[in-house]
C-alpha cells in the first residue's frame, strides 16, 4: 500500500537541516528512526533528538502509519 506522511523539524534542528517540513511517501512499514534516515538521506541522528508522532512524544522504534505527522526536535527550552 502506498502511504504518505508529513515530517516536521523544529528550532536548531530545522535550521541545521535547512528545512522545516517535508512530505514523505513510502510503501512499507516504517519506524520513526526509518523516517529520519529516509527523509534526511541518512544524516547522523543527534544524540539528544526528541521525536513525536501526531503531537505525542514517541520512541524511535514507534511505527508510523499513513497520514501521520512525525516531528523531530532538540531538547525543549521553554518556561
Amino acid at each position, binding site marked *: 500500500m502506498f502511504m504518505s506522511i508529513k515530517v516536521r523539524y523544529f528550532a536548531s534542528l530545522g535550521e541545521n537541516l535547512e528545512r522545516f517540513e517535508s512530505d514523505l511517501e513510502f510503501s512499507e512499514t516504517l519506524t520513526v528512526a526509518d523516517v529520519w534516515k529516509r527523509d534526511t538521506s541518512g544524516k547522523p541522528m543527534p544524540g539528544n533528538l526528541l521525536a513525536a508522532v501526531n503531537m505525542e512524544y514517541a520512541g524511535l522504534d514507534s511505527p508510523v502509519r499513513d497520514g501521520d505527522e512525525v516531528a523531530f526536535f532538540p531538547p*525543549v527550552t521553554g518556561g
Partner: protein
Amino acid sequence: MKVKICREAFDPWREIQVHQATLSGINGEIGAANIFIGTMRDYNEGVGVQSMTLEYYPGMTEKQLDKILGQAALRWWLIDSLIVHRAGEIRPGDPIVLTAVWASHRGDAFDACRFIMEELKSAAPFWKKELLESGQARWVEKNTDGYRKT
C-alpha cells in the same frame, strides 16, 4: 483548566484576575492559590542578552500543556489551574510564563504549581533563541533541573 499561548506581551496579574473571576461561583471552596511567573533576564550563561525568540509547535505544545494540567489534577486536589506562555519575540523584563493553581489547601497549591512548572520546562515543546549583546544569535541548548541545588 486552561492553557493559553500568547504571541504578544501579556500581563500575568491581569490574566490571574480574569481567570479568578471565572471561579466566582466557587469562591468559598478556595483556600489557597499559588502563582509562578517567569520573566526574561538580560543575561544568560555569563553574557548579556538583548532579546529572545520563542518558537513552539502549534497543536503539540497546547496538547502537552493540557496533559501536564491533567496529571497535576490527578495527583493533587485542585479546584482549577492555568498556564499562560509567551511565543514570538520577547525582551528582558517581559513575562515568559505564568502557572497558577487554585486549591482548598496550601500543600496542594504549592506542590502542584511547582510540578506544573517543572514538567513544562522538561516536556512542553518550546525553544528559545537568544540575540546576544554582541549581535550573535544562539539557541538555548537545554533547560536546567529546577530541583538541583546549585
